[in-house]
């Protein structure tokens, strides 16, 4: 927020509305200034930034926990922590990274800031609800953090809270699951807001198939948030009731079925991995045309594949449960359905590569991150097929291979997608450019560090290294060591990136309105945008990826 007030330095004007060309960092009407004007804002851009600051903090905490786990695994034997503490580490790392960062991350941060701009709207449909969802998020985050210290101690169940262990452990699981419940509520509110916004607030003349692809990604995501989140909500409530009153639903001693908990949990939690990845895919679909200065290849195919992924995402949750004692029929059905996800994903990757083909490519930082996404997510996707196949799944279930796989998809996909989007829209959001050299160096460190950290996990997983173990046999020493070295490189890259972005938000060069030569509506307003986004309300925006005018003005080459 310090960066925010700085960006507005020298402009004390309080005018707003059509014709206004100031910045959303200016104090709004009503005499509210400083922190108070932020805490009471209904401006989608300011709310997005408040999410960014909160989630950025939690992300760094999650990174620190990850580093500590890797440190313990550097050598065989127990060095720094005991087994119990290590259990709380991976639970915390998972809860923070999943519930507080990667699930709500891209929609709440970039979705909030960019969606109304891309649609040519003044704000989302329900601005006050939008602010409320931030407060609900903060309340959930507060509960999650409290659960670490209060009562019986930090939860040690893993982020999935599997019954029956989660029913028996004396740690603070009850508060943690209620925190997840509250966070889910925040996610639902955001989803409802975005669906309504997309249906009602598109610029005049912008049909559904004239929307930028990031909006399509968010649309598919929002449907998952609205339809799937309540299921985990009720599941967590049942877990809570089971712990407090004892209702027997997941307790085998009373005829309950712990596997039913897993079903209910993954009915939500598998679709939710597409909540993480679909908006990231949307970001990639925005970045590639801009930096190839070429229209997107297969617009409709990409838009529809987002919806297809969201739909198919509901059909495959059982692949998390191949070894828990499901019926054989369910196992082959879920395995078969799982392979369907590869089709729309493959369509996307094909279209992205085809967009770059014969494009006039500028290897700027956002494009490098986007390319990194395609590379890492492809590894994540292909290792996913190994997990989805029944026979191989039995071998690699609950091994480090799984950990490697989902970090390639979640971090290499959603996380890198968020980094790509942050760099892509940074000039628009803050009105300043980031330091290019530092950003390039940070990207290099992240790319190298990421692979050095996670690739050995795939290898040792196949060798038989179980996940969630604090100790291991000497034969796994080498891959563990390499992996830990990688974590240091990756952490250095992340720190450099964060420092660079924070510094640039304050001191960077002033950014032009359209630094990269983008064609979608957010580039047609000022950087940073005024309070109601557009001095002149856009109409009939036409093809979102028509580069004719950009090429005429700036040339085909670079």
């Amino acid at each position, binding site marked *: 927020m310090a960066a925010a007030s700085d960006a507005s330095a020298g402009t004390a004007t309080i005018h707003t509305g*059509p014709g206004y060309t100031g910045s959303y960092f200016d104090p709004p009407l009503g005499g509210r200034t400083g922190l108070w004007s932020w805490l009471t804002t209904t401006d989608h851009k300011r709310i997005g930034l408040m999410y960014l600051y909160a989630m950025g903090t939690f992300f760094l905490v999650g990174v620190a926990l990850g580093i500590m786990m890797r440190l313990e695994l550097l050598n065989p034997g127990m060095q720094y922590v005991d087994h119990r503490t290590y259990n709380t580490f991976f639970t915390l790392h998972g809860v923070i990274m999943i519930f507080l960062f990667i699930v709500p991350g891209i929609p709440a941060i970039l979705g909030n800031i960019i969606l109304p701009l891309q*649609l*040519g*709207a*003044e704000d989302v449909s329900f601005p006050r609800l939008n602010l409320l969802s931030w407060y609900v998020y903060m309340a959930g985050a507060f509960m999650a953090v409290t659960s670490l210290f209060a009562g019986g101690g930090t939860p040690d169940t893993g982020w999935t809270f599997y019954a029956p262990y989660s029913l028996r452990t004396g740690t603070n699981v009850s508060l943690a699951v209620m925190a997840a419940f509250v966070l889910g509520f925040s996610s639902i509110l955001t989803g409802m807001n975005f669906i309504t916004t997309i*249906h*009602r*607030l*598109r*610029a*005049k003349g912008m049909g559904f198939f004239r929307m930028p692809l990031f909006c399509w990604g968010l649309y598919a995501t929002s*449907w998952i948030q609205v*339809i799937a989140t309540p*299921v985990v909500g009720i599941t967590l409530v049942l877990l809570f009731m089971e712990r407090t009153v004892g209702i027997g639903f997941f307790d085998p001693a009373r005829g309950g079925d712990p*596997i039913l908990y897993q*079903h209910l949990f993954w*009915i939500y939690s598998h679709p939710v991995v597409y909540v993480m990845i679909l908006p990231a895919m949307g970001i990639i679909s925005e970045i590639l045309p801009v930096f190839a200065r070429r229209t997107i290849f297969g617009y409709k195919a990409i838009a529809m594949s987002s919806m297809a992924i969201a739909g198919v995402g*509901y*059909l495959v*949750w*059982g692949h998390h449960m191949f070894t828990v004692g*499901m*019926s*054989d*029929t*369910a196992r082959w*059905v*879920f395995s078969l359905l799982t392979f369907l996800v590869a089709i729309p994903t493959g369509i996307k990757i094909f279209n992205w590569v085809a967009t770059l083909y014969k494009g006039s490519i500028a290897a700027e930082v956002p494009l490098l991150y986007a390319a990194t996404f395609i590379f890492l997510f492809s590894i994540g996707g292909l290792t996913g097929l190994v997990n989805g196949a029944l026979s191989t799944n039995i071998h690699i279930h609950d091994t480090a291979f799984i950990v490697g796989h989902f970090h390639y998809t979640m971090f290499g996909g959603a996380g890198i997608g968020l980094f790509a989007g942050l760099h892509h829209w940074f000039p628009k959001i803050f009105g300043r450019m980031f330091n290019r050299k530092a950003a390039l160096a940070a990207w290099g460190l992240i790319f190298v560090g990421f692979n050095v950290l996670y690739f050995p996990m795939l290898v040792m997983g196949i060798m038989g290294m179980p996940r969630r173990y604090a100790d291991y046999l000497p034969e796994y020493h080498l891959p563990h060591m390499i992996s830990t070295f990688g974590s240091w490189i990756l952490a250095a890259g992340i720190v450099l990136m964060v420092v660079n972005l924070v510094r640039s938000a304050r001191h960077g060069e002033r950014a032009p309105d359209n630094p990269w030569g983008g064609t979608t509506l957010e580039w047609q307003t000022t950087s940073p945008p005024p309070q109601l986004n557009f001095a002149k*309300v856009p109409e009939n925006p036409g093809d979102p990826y028509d580069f004719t005018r950009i090429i005429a003005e700036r040339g085909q080459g670079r």
Partner: protein
Amino acid sequence: MHDAHATAHAEHEHIVPDGLQVLIWISLMLLTLITAGASILFPGRVGIGVAMVVTPLKAALILMFFMHLKYEKPVFRWMFLTAMAILAVVMGLTFFDYSHR
């Protein structure tokens, strides 16, 4: 979006006649009686079978008339059907496990 929906009254608004709603209510009460009667007189298969047919019918009446779905834009019906379809599919897939244990 500007001015696109500036006037609320421009949106067509349908007022369902009170008489029709009372008729719907009477039907719902009768259908409830039928379900309850069937389950008391023919407990077991028949009673449950009647309930399985009549209950969705009652739900449809509530949705279409009390909740106005019949008079809303088609997109509302599509959205509702999507949500229902997902719930049905999820339920069905769960039983691939429980029916074949």
